[in-house]
């Protein structure tokens, strides 16, 4: 019924495109995801609860969420600096740097995982430098964080860039004319203005990190209770023909991601409404 909602708008094509969107979305995304959820409900609630709350599973949530949070935070800080320098400063190689930011999108995650492991293992280019300092990256949570940081970079940079580009210079000039110094201008004027984008970038990179598998398994060491991520546990369950367990854990992660994404969209929508007065 709500398909007909935009009542007699002159712009044509709502029914067609909406119907197509919904059908395609259902076929590709919704029905398969429903299959996943229903599969986890083929057993009783208590059993499902038990499966998703085993100590080892819980430990994997902790590792996954903690590392994802740290990685997203690193990305937030450094991604901001990268986006800032890319939009504000002229320097040699800027175009190249700008182009390369999308690399993690395109590189197969397994290749990234192997490459990162090669660099950060104790006989690797960087690992060997860190070894004398007693810092071990590969096969620790640090390694997971490195991999998750790698795959999250483009999300933060690419959401912040347009926001920084659209920042009106007027605002900064206004702050300067009111006597604010650079730092005050940054904290009080620029930061709040790009906050919604920062939240979005952070959340996107966080959400992506939650589900990441390919690049992590090589570098994480996969130690149960310590460096085992949830995606790996799903695979483990599958290896044991435990479809219900795998589906239950996958569903849990899926719901987390969905809620996270919904929050992002609402934040953006809300910020847009309030600030633009739409």
């Amino acid at each position, binding site marked *: 019924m*709500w398909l007909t*909602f*935009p009542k007699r708008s002159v*712009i044509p094509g*709502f029914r067609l*495109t*909406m119907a*197509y969107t919904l059908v*395609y*979305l259902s076929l590709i*995304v*919704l029905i*398969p*995801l429903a299959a*996943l959820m229903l599969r986890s409900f083929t057993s009783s609630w208590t059993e499902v609860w038990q499966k998703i709350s085993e100590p080892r599973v819980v430990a994997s949530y902790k590792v996954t969420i903690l590392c994802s949070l740290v990685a997203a935070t690193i990305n937030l800080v450094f991604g901001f600096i990268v986006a800032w*320098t890319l939009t504000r*400063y*002229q*320097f040699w190689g800027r175009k190249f740097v*700008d*182009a*390369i*930011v*999308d*690399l993690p*999108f*395109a*590189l*197969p*995650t*397994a*290749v*990234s995982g192997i*490459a990162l492991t*090669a660099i950060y293992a104790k006989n690797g*280019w960087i690992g060997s430098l860190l070894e004398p300092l007693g810092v071990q990256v590969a096969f620790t949570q640090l390694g997971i964080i490195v991999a998750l940081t*790698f795959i999250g970079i483009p999300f933060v940079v690419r959401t912040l860039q347009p926001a920084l*580009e659209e*920042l*009106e*210079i007027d605002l900064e*000039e206004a702050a*300067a004319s009111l006597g604010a110094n650079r730092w005050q201008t940054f904290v009080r004027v620029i930061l709040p203005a790009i906050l919604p984008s920062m939240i979005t970038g952070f959340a*996107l990179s966080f959400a992506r990190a*939650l*589900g*990441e*598998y390919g690049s992590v398994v090589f570098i994480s060491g996969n130690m149960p209770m310590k460096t085992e991520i*949830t*995606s790996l546990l*799903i*695979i483990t369950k599958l290896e044991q023909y435990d*479809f219900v367990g*795998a*589906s239950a854990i*996958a569903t849990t*992660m899926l719901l987390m*991601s969905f809620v996270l*994404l919904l929050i992002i969209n*609402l934040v953006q929508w809300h910020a847009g409404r309030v600030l633009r007065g739409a």
Partner: protein
Amino acid sequence: MSSLALGKKIPDRLNEPLWVRAILIAITLSFLTLMLLMPLGVVFWEAFSRGISAYFKSFQDPAAWSAIKLTLVATGIAVPLNLVFGLAAAWAIAKFDFPGKSILVTLIDLPFAVSPVVSGLIYVLVFGMQGWFGETLDAWGIKVIFAVPGIVLATVFVTFPFVARELIPLMQEQGTDEEQAALVLGASGWQTFWYVTLPNIRWALVYGVILASARAMGEFGAVSVVSGHIRGKTNTLPLHIEVLYNEFNVVAAFAAASLLTLLALVTLVIKSVVEWRLARERSEILKPSAAEGA
């Protein structure tokens, strides 16, 4: 209105002191070197570790060629499908108001955040022999999982949001003024879309397609779950890389990886060009009257 072009002009007086700029640029360069350039370097380093001839020899394997072909086929089907979807979804979402828009947009975004493993798993659950439609499809002699359609499906899933996500904000920003103008001038719905809407979003479209293609070619986890790993038949390039790596054939593995990386770099270059044109076009639009003439 500020220009959208990179490196916008900031009055000198408002810029950070030189040393702050230098530090920030240094941080940017070292961070990206550590995180992006070094992995890239490792790929090529390993690929050429036994010389150039070893590098090129690794492409003589027919399995490599079939993997490249399959990757291109999967990308070639998945990306156009998502392109059409992206256009339809962006049209419905950007040009109309309806309740539940936020949820719809979130659902479109969802594949971004779904673990690739899960992305593959869900199709197994639907089309596998133990799944919903597996038996039925098998009775009809249709194979989805462990065959090309499954690989295409998984690729479609992981690249699902890319085009739509590029288009929706742009089309929202552009509003419906031009479409209305076209309709008033007597254009049909298709004419309006074809002559007015499409040219306005073409660069964003190209950008979305490039990102989707890059991701489609590089996808590993999801495809791995539904592929069946039949050498020469259902291995995509990333899967083939895994096979080679597991065969201790490091040079060939990284040679194939370097090929993907090169493809990625080429698309990134194209993307930069596209982006540059996009920015130029936008800044032209945003520019107030060029000159008060006549």
